[in-house]
């Protein structure tokens, strides 16, 4: 019986304005080699200037994963040759990284809660990109991405299956988004996962030989790769052979992994402290300040939504899945304290439109307060439910205000007093028997009368108005 032992190295691109060691823009995209300077292109004589925000963001990430932050930290050179690395060394952290000894709790269906230990989180630089031109037999180097600040999250080998890994990657994506340090869009390469996987014979104390699978860029790839790799290694071991320690790549089309390097991967990176980058000291006050800037994290919000707001766990999970939505929800509830109403309207209507691509959760064209007003109006029947949905659609499409849309489209339920009085009179007249029963003491029949009036007066005025008027009239008849 073989037990999979899996550890991860996750790289996340930080949301800074400039690169880690120079002032070139860290914005995504741009024509190749237009976001470079002598420094990030590795020209002779250039030197690194460490980005303060990159360090702060790395510390934030550490806090979200319950790490200890080293108050003295420094950077090391990892030396190797590759055309996407202009200086032939990557500045990383080996000896004294920023964050150590963290933990992240995950919840796997059917397994319950599990704690994944974080070995360290360190701050390093990204390499450039290579485009392969097979026709001309050359590779083309673009250094725009070179120098983008990355954090590398290294876990202990605490995972035993693909589901746990999936949960973890989704969890830390959420944490990093909440911390505002990374958008974690795997398809854009903002989050990249390397998997280290080996099999251990049940009862053994020694870990098996591990293979590394690099650059998996979707959750699906990760789970497929792990499942394939477990199968592959199991077969090898069952045949009495040895697993080779190597780096492998995942083949999307075939769902298999294949060896990336033919020789045994014992590349000596000759790490040594980078003499161009002074060590950084961080005070407790600075750490406290950074921690204070962190927003309420997803787990805490989840608890609050369930315990305080009495939302269902399912709905609460949906809301916290995107920080922008959760923030929006909290803001809206501050305006109109009906969490259930607001959450329903967000989940059923707003999120639906977001998922359709009509708008971006990070760029909602109206305020949470405005949204809360809409929900309240619908609740109080100042707008009919269907019209409220339509109003939302128009708000998204046109960017116009709630008031403007409701006015222009006649959605406001105008309190037509005349019609109210005359309609009730009419219904009371048509239901003399029921009225008589009511006056005789049958309070129950009020509901029937109420129903008749509401049906007749739908869209004309609010149920509250109807009720009041009906009660008044019946009261006068007594």
């Amino acid at each position, binding site marked *: 019986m073989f037990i999979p032992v899996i550890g991860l190295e996750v790289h996340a691109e930080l949301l*800074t*304005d*400039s690169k880690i060691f120079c*002032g*070139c*823009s*860290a*914005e995504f995209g741009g*024509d*190749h*080699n*237009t*976001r*470079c*300077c*002598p420094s990030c*292109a590795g020209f002779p004589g250039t030197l690194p*200037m*460490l*980005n*303060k*925000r*990159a*360090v*702060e963001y790395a510390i934030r990430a550490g806090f979200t994963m319950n790490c200890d932050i080293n108050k*003295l930290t*420094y950077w090391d050179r990892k*030396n190797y*040759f*590759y*055309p996407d690395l202009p200086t032939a060394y990557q500045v990383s952290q080996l*000896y*004294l990284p920023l964050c150590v000894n963290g933990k992240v709790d995950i919840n796997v269906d059917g397994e319950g809660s599990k704690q994944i230990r974080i070995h360290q989180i360190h701050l390093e630089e990204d390499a450039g990109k*290579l*485009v*392969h031109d097979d026709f001309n*037999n*050359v*590779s*083309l*180097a*673009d*250094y725009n991405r070179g120098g983008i600040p990355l954090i590398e999250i290294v876990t202990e080998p605490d995972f035993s299956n693909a589901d746990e890994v999936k949960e973890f990657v989704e969890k830390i994506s959420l944490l990093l988004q909440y911390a505002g340090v990374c958008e974690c869009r795997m398809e854009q390469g903002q989050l990249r996962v390397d998997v280290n996987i080996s099999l251990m014979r049940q009862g053994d104390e020694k870990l098996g030989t591990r293979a590394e699978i690099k650059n998996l860029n979707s959750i699906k790839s990760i789970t497929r790769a792990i499942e394939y790799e477990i199968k592959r290694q199991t077969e090898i071991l069952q045949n009495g052979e040895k697993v080779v320690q190597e780096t492998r790549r995942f083949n999307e089309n075939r769902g298999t992994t294949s060896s*990336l*390097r033919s020789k045994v991967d014992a590349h*000596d990176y*000759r790490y040594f*402290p980078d003499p161009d980058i*002074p*060590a*950084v*000291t*961080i*005070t407790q006050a*600075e750490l406290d300040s950074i921690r204070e800037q962190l927003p309420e994290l997803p787990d805490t919000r989840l608890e609050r939504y369930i315990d305080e707001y009495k939302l269902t766990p399912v709905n609460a999970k949906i809301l916290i899945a995107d920080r922008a939505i959760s923030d929006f929800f909290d803001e809206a509830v501050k305006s109109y304290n009906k969490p259930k109403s607001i959450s329903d309207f967000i989940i059923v209507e707003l999120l639906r439109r977001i998922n359709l691509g009509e708008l971006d959760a990070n760029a909602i064209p109206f305020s949470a307060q405005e949204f809360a007003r809409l929900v309240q109006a619908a609740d109080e029947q100042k707008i009919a439910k269907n019209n409220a949905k339509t109003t939302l659609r128009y708000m998204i499409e046109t960017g116009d205000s709630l008031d403007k849309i409701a006015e222009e489209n006649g959605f406001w339920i105008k309190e037509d007093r005349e019609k109210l009085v005359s309609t009730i009179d009419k219904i009371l007249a048509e239901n003399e028997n029921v009225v008589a029963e009511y006056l005789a003491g049958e309070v129950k029949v009020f509901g029937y009368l109420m129903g008749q009036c509401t049906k007749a007066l739908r869209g004309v005025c609010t149920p509250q108005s109807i009720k009041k008027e009906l009660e008044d009239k019946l009261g006068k008849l007594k």
Partner: protein
Amino acid sequence: MDIKTISNLAELSQLDFNEEEVEKLSKELDTMVGMMGKIKQSDAKYECSANASSVDLDGLRADEAKPSMPTDELLANAQSADGYFVVPKVME
């Protein structure tokens, strides 16, 4: 220093040497390593927290994007095509 060690170092250094050169190097490097090896006699202990210079978080560069170097200037000393640095095909 044996051939294998020199060969590994040459690989790490991305330098090629022929047989004759390796033999010559073997002697030269042996002498140098021997002299550098004298340091093993020191009982000094490295304290990573006692580094001469460190800077506070505040002393780091503010995160502001500045204009980059125009692409043609960047590529002026290189072999380029279409705004890219040209590299012969990577084998691995």
